[in-house]
């Protein structure tokens, strides 16, 4: 029952409204995704201009968040959606918030890039950063795709990926902690990397949240605050 038939309302305007919400959200997702790539690349290739671009885009994302929220409110007020439509609007509102937070985190990484460019590159951590960045970026893409296709299986995968990112993040922490002990002079710069990693890890969490909203949207199941195993069980059960 992955089919939500959003375009089958008697009211064509309602179809259009919901489609508009979806499109706006995915566009915003595209912006945030680009922010993440750019922010990570800004650090790894020491590109301050790219980092500045991320900061500029962040304003755009903030504006879009507000607009999308207004549109959600409008649909709620005018259409009083029920069932899947209601879940759709709620999910869009929640995903919207998560995307905006992801944008904020990407902004943090971009600021770190600028900081590192001003104070000299960090000796270590770039590999981890690239690796985790790539993982997180994958997650974001998967989460947005699962929303675009109302694909629950893909959403569950995102939750799995989040676990992986968490592990990678922990091992990266341990490794960077060793560097700092070895070379105390590099502490402040390595810390910048750590904060960036932390931001990427948060982005992963938000992507996982998006996946949970998608599961709520499609299945009507609230799968927050439970283990991935439990989540999988509930999703499979509801089929």
């Amino acid at each position: 029952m992955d089919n939500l038939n959003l375009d089958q309302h008697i009211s064509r305007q309602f179809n259009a409204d919901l489609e508009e919400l979806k499109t706006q959200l995915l566009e915003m997702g595209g912006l945030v995704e680009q922010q993440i790539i750019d922010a990570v690349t800004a650090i790894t290739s020491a590109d301050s201009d790219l980092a500045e671009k991320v900061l500029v885009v962040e304003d755009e994302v903030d504006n879009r968040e507000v607009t999308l929220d207004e549109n959600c409110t409008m649909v709620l007020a005018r259409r009083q959606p029920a069932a899947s439509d209601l879940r759709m609007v709620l999910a869009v509102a929640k995903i919207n918030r998560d995307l905006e937070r992801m944008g904020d985190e990407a902004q943090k990484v971009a600021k770190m890039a600028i900081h590192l460019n001003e104070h000299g590159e960090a000796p270590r951590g770039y590999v981890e950063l690239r690796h985790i960045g790539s993982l997180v970026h994958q997650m974001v893409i998967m989460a947005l795709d699962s929303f675009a296709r109302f694909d629950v299986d893909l959403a569950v995968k995102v939750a799995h990926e989040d676990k992986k990112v968490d592990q990678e993040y922990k091992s990266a922490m341990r490794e960077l902690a060793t560097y700092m002990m070895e070379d105390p002079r590099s502490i402040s710069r390595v810390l910048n990397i750590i904060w960036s990693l932390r931001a990427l890890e948060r982005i992963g969490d938000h992507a996982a949240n998006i996946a949970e909203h998608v599961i709520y949207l499609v299945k009507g199941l609230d799968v927050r605050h439970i283990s991935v195993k439990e989540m999988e069980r509930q999703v499979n059960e509801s089929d």
Partner: protein
Amino acid sequence: MDIAQPLDKIPASSSEPAAGKAINVKEGVDQDTPVPAKPVGNPFVDDPKMKLRDVEVFYGDEQAIHGISLDIGKNEVLSMIGPSGCGKSTFLRCLNRMNDTIDICRVKGSLHLEDQDLYDPKLDVVELRARVGMVFQKPNPFPKSIYDNVAYGPRIHGLANRRSDLDEIVETSLQKAGLWKEVKDRLHSPGTGLSGGQQQRLCIARTIAVSPEVILMDEPCSALDPIATAKIEELIAELSENFTIAIVTHSMQQAARVSNRTAYFHLGKLVEVNDTEKVFTNPDHKLTEAYITGRFG
């Protein structure tokens, strides 16, 4: 830069509008979507006031209701929704045998109010209707005074022997219907002179004056403005403390607002019965979903 490579390779696919096409991949829900043999959800409750099993209704040769089984719990508000002609009103009218007045209408199945078989030939329908009251779509006060409207039921059933008893019944009924304050100074002016909403509350007062156990409401607000509707809905919530209420409504928002459980009817069959919250956030059956989200109706 080799490590950055995978990042760039991944396309920003999520912003592609092509993703939206996925919605159309599977076929939609329409009137021909098969209705499940057994209703999904939980049609039965632990403490039923009315127990209805395999109810079938025929108009002549045409079958209007196909084997509906359902419980109405004590002091609950059960709303019945569904597209026009789905049999919800017909079903409701079986519950106090209003269908008897239609010559060609036949009812089969087992219908019980507590232990009483509704279609027991020995049961006098007058007695049944005193236990199962009904409020109709259009406010239909008698062309008599407000007092006489409310007093009519108690009078014909001999519920009050003295004038003072009758006065009391009238007052409490009007109070319960939230109409007392508005009409206490003009009890003897005609009931038809009230506004639509007041008339409908008068009809509710008239119904509860007989102290029924179950109140059936057949689209009680369809002829009223939103304010009057809100008042009736408020009243339904209050009445559910003392009465069991079954309400047929065309307004899904109304069903969502007033009822504890919602039953969705489709083409004379029961598709889904569930807690109202469940039905309106995540219905179990796609027909229900399609109906309440306005895919067809």
